[in-house]
């Protein structure tokens, strides 16, 4: 049973890579097969986001969810990418030239370490029990409901906790159930392993040609071995999926601020849409990322702002149908019970909320020192002469932390100072997004500090960037 389920998952995730590769070729172009291999992680995550968004829209529109729908969606998205590539006259990938920097000794050593780590995570997750409360209480039941009833079953979505939480992860998990041939909640952990592996490969693939291996890999490994990532990244809930999507969106926007490649903004917009359809806080964090990018691009605002606003608006439009669906059914719980302005009746809360957020971000027992390292990297990049990247990163971290304070302040049912068990700790989940984000942004910042400028591009586009 498990072997069959694992084989099904492998085939399904290979299909996601193909879909994502077609889309990436369409928006970016892929010059060589070595480049296809290097960006296969990014292609996989593009496929995950695109399919997750498409499945969510189909569920909201009432399209019956099943293997046929999944297959047709994959074909349509892949064909869309190929049509886009033809329209932009993208050349086919040719040759297998291995990129020199990818073969450095440090890189090879760390690739081996990360490989050993991912194998260990796989072994632990393959037979893991479903013991996480949120997992069995509503994330997996929602996935089961989509699997069994072929759609957003109103009775279950009304009865289960947090009915307004978006359905992207349950839809992807339901797709995994179809791929496995049964609602196998044990092997489901392996699907989360694919997401983790895809994210790691995406960050490494994006940064390998621009960031030196001794800068990139130790930081990436440091984030991966943070105790909370080790213990909880395979739990079948949405927290880490949200973190991956937001981290990739923020990283691509950071690269866009330096390179101005349209494909980077297109992919970032897709990841932002995916994040908004993954968890409620995805909207908050997506807004923080877009506002940070707007502020960091102040000097080129005439050129940059329309594009950034368009990318943010496109992501919001893709997330809108879900909001219409749950609001039309009077499902509640999305906003603080006291409303947006009710927080001013609780002016005793911001200070303990701020202390709780700072404490959670600096909790070395959960995150080692990923966030302090990000702060040091921002300072070093500024000191080294870079301006755009450190300003953007400082704003992303700062605005997000302010957003977390707002959450604790305005949801007055949360007792302050906030000190819940880690398994159900809302703040630990929120902070996870900034920690995972550090896996991509910190190497970029340290590289900028090393170079003494924002990056090798500093503005000009490469041919592969497309229109």
């Amino acid at each position: 049973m498990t072997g069959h389920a694992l084989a099904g998952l492998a085939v399904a995730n290979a299909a996601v890579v193909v879909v994502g590769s077609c889309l990436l070729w369409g928006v970016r172009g892929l010059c060589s097969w070595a480049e296809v291999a290097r960006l296969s992680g990014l292609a996989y995550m593009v496929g995950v986001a695109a399919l997750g968004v498409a499945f969510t829209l189909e569920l909201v529109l009432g399209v019956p969810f099943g293997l046929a729908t999944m297959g047709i969606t994959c074909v349509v998205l892949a064909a869309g990418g190929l049509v886009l590539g033809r329209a932009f006259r993208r050349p086919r990938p040719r040759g297998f030239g291995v990129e020199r920097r990818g073969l450095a000794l440090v890189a090879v050593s760390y690739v081996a370490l990360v490989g050993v780590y991912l194998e260990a995570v796989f072994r632990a997750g393959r037979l893991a029990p479903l013991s996480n409360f949120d997992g069995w209480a509503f994330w997996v039941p929602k996935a089961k409901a989509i699997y069994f009833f072929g759609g957003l079953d109103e009775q279950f979505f009304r009865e289960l906790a947090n009915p307004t939480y978006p359905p992207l992860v349950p839809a992807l998990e339901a797709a995994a159930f179809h791929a496995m041939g049964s609602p196998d909640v044990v092997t489901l952990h392996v699907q989360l392993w694919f997401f983790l592996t895809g994210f790691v490969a995406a960050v490494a693939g994006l940064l390998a040609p621009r960031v030196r291996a001794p800068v990139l890999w130790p930081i990436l490994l440091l984030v991966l071995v943070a105790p909370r990532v080790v213990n909880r990244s395979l739990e079948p809930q949405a927290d880490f999926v949200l973190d991956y999507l937001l981290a990739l969106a923020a990283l691509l926007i950071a690269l866009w601020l330096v390179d101005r490649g349209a494909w980077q903004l297109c992919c970032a917009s897709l990841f932002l849409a995916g994040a908004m359809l993954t968890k409620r806080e995805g909207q908050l964090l997506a807004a923080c990322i877009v506002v940070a990018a707007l502020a960091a691009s102040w000097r080129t605002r005439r050129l940059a702002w329309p594009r950034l606003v368009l990318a943010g608006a496109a992501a919001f439009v893709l997330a809108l149908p879900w909001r219409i669906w749950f609001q039309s059914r009077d499902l509640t719980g999305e906003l603080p019970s006291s409303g947006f302005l009710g927080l001013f009746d609780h002016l005793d809360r911001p200070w303990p909320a701020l202390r709780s957020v700072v404490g959670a971000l600096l909790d070395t027992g959960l995150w080692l020192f990923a966030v302090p390292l990000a702060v040091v990297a921002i300072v070093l990049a500024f000191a080294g002469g870079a301006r755009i990247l450190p300003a953007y990163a400082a704003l992303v971290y700062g605005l997000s932390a302010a957003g977390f304070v707002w959450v604790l302040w305005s949801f007055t049912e949360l007792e302050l100072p906030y000190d819940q068990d880690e398994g159900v700790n809302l703040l630990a989940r929120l902070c996870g997004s900034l920690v995972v984000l550090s896996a991509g942004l910190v190497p970029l910042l340290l590289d900028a500090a090393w170079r003494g400028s924002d990056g090798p591009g500093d503005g000009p586009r490469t041919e592969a960037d497309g229109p």
Partner: protein
Amino acid sequence: MVVCLVLAAAVGLVYFAKAVDALGDAAAANAVANYDDRELAGGTALGVDQEALVAARGLIPEGETYRLVVGPQATNIGQFTRYFLMPRRTAEDARWVVCYECDLSRFGGELHVLWQSDAGVAVGRLPG
């Protein structure tokens, strides 16, 4: 910056070893359990009677509805039962009854009990 990177690399390698060790232990512990233990792990933490839920899943057909009636000591098992018995739906007027430490006399002798445990859990069907 070099200090920063050396520190990150050193901490990363130490915790890498710890992580691989811990993950190996977790894999070994997970391998010992059987599939039901893994699927019911969340309920085990709540003190749910595994045997009863497995029996209920075996007896109640997938397309049927059921009602969960709980005694005063077992009030927090509703969510887990709903998850475990999916795709069976809950309904207040369902013929199938999962009585979890409840008082069977409330059914006035009409409940045809198909499975019962010493711990006071019963699965049965009402006429109609």
